[in-house]
């Protein structure tokens, strides 16, 4: 039983980071109806940004993720203006191709600049652990969990309480009417795209100390983010956060009872089941 609860705890620790990734994707989908197939690639860029800060300026990744997130925000805004805005009113077909293309460019540019070498950040914290009763957890994971939760809660309040958040929800409810109410469509869309990308970047920075870094590291996270967003109901930001936790739990439990290598398959099967039987998501309300 201890092992079960330990696995649940591990799952939630990872799940909070997943929630951050999923919320970014959900934000972009909600406001623009564009599925960002480059999400994992942006996460990878966030990891490299944090890594560069660590490598050149000796900045601890748990501080470095903030400037990295900022860089990604600006980068996301520029990508929106140059590449996403022109396809805003085009078919899904073209939008998917566009984001796929952006993802390829990002991944292979990273390959060109940093080569395919595996890189790692060695920080002290990763070797320490925290014990509560019979349960143990890595100190670095607990810290990144806390930061991720702070971001998730912050984003929730931002979206529900602030004026920009209201504009954002207005556009996601009705992209035709919102601009008539005086909301600047381009600015809000650009802002939410940039914010979604920044969240992916932050998650990347927080994941960095735990993973080996290489240009293709983001690929799995694109697909994982889709799974979370679909679990939570496409476009629902809170749903995506819950989806992230569910995914973290299911992966951790699959690793415990079936085997580590099957975790990703369970993700996809979950995804296909939800898509075929409850496309509005397990937490989703029915949307148009």
């Amino acid at each position, binding site marked *: 039983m201890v092992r079960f609860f330990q696995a649940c705890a591990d799952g939630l620790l990872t799940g909070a980071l997943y929630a951050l990734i999923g919320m970014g994707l959900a934000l972009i989908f909600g406001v623009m109806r564009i599925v960002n197939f480059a999400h994992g690639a942006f996460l990878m860029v966030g990891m490299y940004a944090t890594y560069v800060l660590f490598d050149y300026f000796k900045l601890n990744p748990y501080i470095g993720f903030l400037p990295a997130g900022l860089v990604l925000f600006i980068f996301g805004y520029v990508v929106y203006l140059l590449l996403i805005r022109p396809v805003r009113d085009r078919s899904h077909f073209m939008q998917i191709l566009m984001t796929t293309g952006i993802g390829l460019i990002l991944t292979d540019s990273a390959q060109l600049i940093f080569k395919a070498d595996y890189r790692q950040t060695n920080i002290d914290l990763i070797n320490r652990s925290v014990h509560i009763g019979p349960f143990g957890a890595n100190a670095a994971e607990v810290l990144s969990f806390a930061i991720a939760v702070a971001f998730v809660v912050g984003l929730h309040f931002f979206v529900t309480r602030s004026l920009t958040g209201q504009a954002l929800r207005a556009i996601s409810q009705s992209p035709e009417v919102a601009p008539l109410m005086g909301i600047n469509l381009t600015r809000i869309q650009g802002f939410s795209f940039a914010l979604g990308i920044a969240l992916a970047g932050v998650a990347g920075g927080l994941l960095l100390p735990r993973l080996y870094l290489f240009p293709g590291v983001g690929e799995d996270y694109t697909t994982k983010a889709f799974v979370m967003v679909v679990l939570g109901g496409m476009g629902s930001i809170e749903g995506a956060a819950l989806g992230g936790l569910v995914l973290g739990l299911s992966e951790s439990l699959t690793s415990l009872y079936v085997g580590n290598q*099957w975790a990703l398959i369970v993700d996809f099967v979950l995804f296909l089941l939800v*898509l075929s039987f409850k496309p509005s998501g397990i937490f989703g309300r029915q949307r148009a």
Partner: protein
Amino acid sequence: MSILKSWKFWIGLIVVLLWARMPWFIRNNYQLQVLFRITLFAALGLAWNLVGGYAGQLSLGHVAFFGVGAYGLALFTEIGIPIWISVFLAAVVATIFAAVIGAIAFRLRGPYFTLSTIAFAEVLRLTATNLNVTGGAIGLTMPSLFVGRTFWRSFYLASVALTVVAFLANYWASRSRFGYYLMAIREDEDTASAVGINTALCKLQALLMSAFLTALAGALYGSAFQFIVPDSILTLEISVQIAIITMLGGAGTLLGPIVGAVLLLTASEAFKNQFRESHLLIYGILIVVVVLFLPEGIVGGLQHRFRRRIRPPADANPKPALGGAAQ
């Protein structure tokens, strides 16, 4: 025989014969191998075109059929079935997979459809990586369809034959009632369904044909390169490659996939020496360029321009054209 009077038929025949004669001009095995891949990807693009071009369904899971073709060939021959029957059986299995995938995925639209095709392909890749029977991450040695000194020449000719078959399937789709149904679905699925087209069935039929051809190409490809691992034969990269080849040349056009394959593979071959592992960069850049500036692809854009130049005076009361590559 009206077909014998059409100049297009004769030109096509001459092109095919010249294309098939290529190995007699080229003795270099590496160049033949590149030609083989160009031709094979033309066939893959044509197969994808049935679903992605005519029916307008953006599948990024076609590598599933490709991989099943290759794995099927390896596994069927292993249990003692003659090699050419194995190729056929592998393609049949891929078609059955397509029926299952289509039954679920075609209930979804737009991004949901694309996502589910990716998910299916990824499930297959991960399963192949984890099962012992498929050799896991270590992979399988493929049986050789051809042996001896004419190895690459035979594979090349087989790929030309496959491309011709795929082209004929596209030709049929562009002229038949079935093809018009597909195009109607692409333009507006709800309207198509409202005028009595069984949209689910049409899309599924297109996918089955497409999957069968894709699996044949997969078997050929796997056998030619003699060795398969999940990360080479079942990766999302191949699905993207097939889609972008067709989009670059012109989705929903007959010649588009062929033009796309020639251009893209030549370019990527040239870039491979320059950029090594980053040769997919050119794919990314091309995708962005195509989406922004050439949404109808090269052939699609040219056709559009030519039709406009030649036709207008002939019709005093122009009706909006059905089909075309308009979005």
